[in-house]
């Protein structure tokens, strides 16, 4: 087994499994966030956030999610570092745009952008809700349900640059997903002539829904506050 995990395909196997796991997290996260759009009183989103913070299943999944992130980032670094050594003398002229997509060639850079965004995002909300607390959370607490809605919307309404950061993070994530959905299945061996076309279409839909969805929420909150 150790030999398998040290082989090139073994490392990529873990990369794609952890990636697909993180994708399921993104989908759940987007569904919960979309409650912000559907209920401007914030009660629906607060209930959902409270449920996620207190549900025992989520408490078990949370460390698994952290492991997923760590595995994905760890193997991304290992694989990329090796790939940087495989062409000691580079080409003078290279036209890669003809044969591959930009996002497929820049997965590591896109990943770095997403990771930077993730750190900002965790510091903005997750850290405050989970550990340090915030006075906005204590506003109008009903039955012990914290006012996460107020924390989130205040953040977006107060600072334009936060909104822009979230939009950039969403776009980078979308480009990352555009290549990765089919790529993950290809690495797992689940692709052929027919499924390649289906999976690239699914990848397009998934990346537009996720990037569009996550970008829409801060924009919506900010713009509707200005009307």
């Amino acid at each position, binding site marked *: *087994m150790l030999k*398998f995990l040290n*082989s*090139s*395909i*073994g*490392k*990529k*196997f873990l990369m794609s499994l952890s990636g697909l796991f993180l994708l399921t997290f993104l989908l759940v996260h987007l569904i919960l966030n979309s409650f912000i759009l559907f209920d401007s009183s914030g009660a629906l989103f607060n209930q959902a956030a409270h449920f996620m913070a207190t549900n025992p299943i989520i408490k078990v999944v949370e460390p698994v999610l952290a492991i997923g992130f760590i595995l994905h980032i760890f193997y991304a670094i290992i*694989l990329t570092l*090796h*790939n940087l*050594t*495989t*062409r*000691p*003398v*580079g*080409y*003078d*002229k*290279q*036209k*890669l745009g*003809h*044969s*591959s*997509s930009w996002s*497929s*060639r820049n*997965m590591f850079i896109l990943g770095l952008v997403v990771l930077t965004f993730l750190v900002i995002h965790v510091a903005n909300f997750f850290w405050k809700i989970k550990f340090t607390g915030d006075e906005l959370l204590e506003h109008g607490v009903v039955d012990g349900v914290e006012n996460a809605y107020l924390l989130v919307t205040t953040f977006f309404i107060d600072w334009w640059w936060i909104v822009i950061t979230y939009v950039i993070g969403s776009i980078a994530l979308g480009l990352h997903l555009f*290549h990765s959905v*089919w*790529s993950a299945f*290809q*690495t*797992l*061996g*689940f*692709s*052929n*002539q027919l499924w*390649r076309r289906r999976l690239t279409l699914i990848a397009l839909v998934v990346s537009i829904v996720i990037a569009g969805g996550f970008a829409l929420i801060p924009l919506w909150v900010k713009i509707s506050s200005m009307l």
Partner: protein
Amino acid sequence: MDLTLKVWRQENAKAKGKFEKYQIKNISPDSSFLEMIDALNEQLIQDDKDPVAKEPVAFDHDCREGICGMCSLYINGRAHGPDEEITTCQLHMRKFKDGDTIVIEPWRANGFPVIKDLMVDRQAFDKILQSGGFISANTGNAPDANAIPIGKDKAEEAMDAASCIGCGACVATCKNSSAMLFVASKVSQLALLPQGKHESVKRAHAMIAKMDELGFGHCTNTGACEVECPKGISLDHIARLNREFLAANLMP
């Protein structure tokens, strides 16, 4: 056609190479790319004014019919130059314009060290093949052609994989210098047929281990290899190789 050529010159594997610029005149648009380099070499040999540049440009070629896989060359940023599904010998000068500057480089990869000028050592592919790209069978009289019936679709797919000529364009064009398309086609052509099927697990294991050992990069599924492959070998074969390899390890 009058052209400016920017050619990679390198004395030997250890020497530090550099680009050299050459002017070449009166090239027919109907000549092949290799014929154009032949003309350049003739010019270099017969040029008495510049004794330093007399050495002709070394480049690989053999059949010049697009089937042997011997020619290489990274031309103007693309493996086998600016045309689809062809080898360099099948590239014609009509793909260029009069007055163009053409950049000609050898394959660049850790696994393919430069021997001289534009020639690279592709023994790494032979080593991968020797590690498992065969079937173990008793030799003797040739068996009857139709003794083992094989479905049309399987035979076609195996033949598609077997059309790999081992030129190395996949490695040369891959941003990671990965040899996955080559290994995949060699695994597929055997794994799809009954003669090769029962050793497929062992084969995938051995060939991947050898590929990793020889310093090729990891496949990131960019798909550039498939586009630049002169035989148009599909990425589907890489998916099959991944399946074979995962089955070899997770279901031994």
